[in-house]
């Protein structure tokens, strides 16, 4: 039965659309202010389309005009995020496969311990982690951030659910062919849960990119700052120049929005599945 276009449904859609515009108005305001010369940023009523375009000058100033330059923060973030995501996927998928498909003594207890650590809020660990990392000479390094984000209980739990869904017959056929466990894992099991790994990888990417607390506590040198610390630093230095602050904010949000728009299905499903942030 095909649904006819109905007036009521169109009206409600338009209303929700208008409300959506209002809901996202901070983003539009940010974008529009980042294109304006400073003198026009606060003109009221708000000019959503700038009267004078100052976009190139603003973005140039943000991108090249700071010390260290803004792209330096970008590079730091990209480095940390990619290494974290890769390490985390390797660590979690190995453990998840083992918990789901291999038999060894003490498995259930170990899994319970892993799950129990999920209850510990990351913030209650800052102080001892800080002491420990300083002692290991990892304070003020990117490696510290990568290590702090690489051992995810949530990721392991999510992937385990997917490995559990694989029929043992597939794995057994690998054993028949004489393949070792590592080969069965990389050639049979892993390809079957690739969508789940992609989902987790994208979430890990977003969480690590947005992380502010860990870099704030574990980084000291401005050269090592990730983007989140970088925009804060930039905003503090340019306290009175709001058009530049908005341009910096846009630059921080855009890569995320691109990732989100490309992978929105995975992101939304992953959030619905994992249900938790962190």
């Amino acid at each position, binding site marked *: 039965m095909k649904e006819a276009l109905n007036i009521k*449904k169109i009206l*409600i*859609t338009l209303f*929700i659309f208008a409300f*959506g515009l209002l809901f*996202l108005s*901070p*983003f539009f*305001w940010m974008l529009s202010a980042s294109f304006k010369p400073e003198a026009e*940023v*606060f003109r009221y009523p708000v000019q959503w389309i700038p009267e004078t375009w100052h976009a190139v000058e603003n973005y140039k100033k943000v991108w090249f005009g700071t010390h260290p330059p803004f792209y330096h923060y970008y590079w730091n973030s990209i480095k940390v995020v990619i290494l974290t995501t890769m390490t985390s996927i390797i660590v979690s998928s190995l453990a998840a496969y*083992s918990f789901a498909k*291999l*038999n*060894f003594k003490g498995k259930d207890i*170990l899994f319970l*311990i*892993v799950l129990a*650590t999920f*209850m*510990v*809020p990351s*913030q*209650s*660990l*800052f*102080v*001892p*982690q*800080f*002491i*420990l990392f*300083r002692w290991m000479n990892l304070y003020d390094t990117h490696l510290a951030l990568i*290590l702090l984000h*690489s*051992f995810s209980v949530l990721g*392991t739990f999510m992937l385990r659910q997917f490995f559990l869904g694989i029929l043992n017959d597939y794995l057994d056929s690998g054993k028949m062919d004489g393949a070792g*466990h590592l080969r069965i*894992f990389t050639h049979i099991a892993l390809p079957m849960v690739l969508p789940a790994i992609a989902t987790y990888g994208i979430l890990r990417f*977003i969480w690590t*990119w*947005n992380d*502010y*607390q860990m870099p*704030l*506590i574990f980084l000291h040198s401005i050269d090592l700052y990730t983007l989140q610390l970088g925009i*804060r630093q930039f905003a503090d230095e340019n306290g009175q120049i*709001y058009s530049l*602050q*908005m341009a910096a904010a846009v630059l*921080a949000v855009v890569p*995320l*929005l691109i990732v*989100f*728009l490309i992978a*929105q299905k995975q*992101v939304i499903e992953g*959030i*619905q599945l994992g249900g*938790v942030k962190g």
Partner: protein
Amino acid sequence: MMKPVRLKETTVGYLFVAPLLIGITVITIIPILASFGLSFTNWSLVSGIENIHFIGMNNFNRLFHDAVFMKSLVNNLLLLAALPFKLAFALFLAIIINKYIYFKDFFKIVYFMPFISGVVAIAIVFRVMFHPTYGPVNNMLMSIGIDHPPGWLADMDFAFFSLIIIFTWIQFGFSFIIYIAGLQNISRELYEAASIDGASAWRQFKHITLPMLSPTTFFLLITGIISSFKIFDLIAVLTEGGPANSTMVAIYYLYQRAFVNLETGYASAISIVIFAFILIITLINWVGQRRWVHQ
């Protein structure tokens, strides 16, 4: 024949979980034990290991007479005041978008965007929008006849309220997306049967949607409490607990004591109290899921 195979599987099993277990031990288990130990000392991390002195429960006694810490706990509770409204509105919007409109997927993206956009950038944008003299929000208020609009984040009486608005705006998409998933799990046949019986939309909502969504609502309530307890980034960027501690929350106070005042022992006591709170909420979650939630 069987024996070597099993032995091998055991070894491989341990090898595969080893990286995760070693990581969790170093990153979580040792630190939480250390936190417990340190919470009974008056150590400062700059003073060298030989200066650790055991002071029993003193940190905890001091904590419960610490007016700023008490204020921060009250603020954490106040932060929850917006939660029921947020959930109710998220459910309302989820129902409309799930059933009554076109381009469902597009609207999911729209309302979810703030949640993934990164708190620091959002905080900077809101700081400018809420600017007491130049900001568009106050300009608008003045244009509709409010001559003395509040100073928002700079105003002691409004700073916390402003934070609640921004926090709710960021978190809204999460509740909304989870409710959409919950709604899609309700079998259509229930509604069809109700329609045949002549139940009104309101009665269907009250007797089908709401009860079927009770696990979702309970889950959102618990995660909402936990995430409001963990609020840090917004405060760190926008107010640093001020003006005059009006926006101080437990985690930010912990951060200040640990990394500004360098009171390692005292900060550890704060982290143990926070840990205990979250543990209690998690236990309520476990018990509650079995007892109060319709399955």
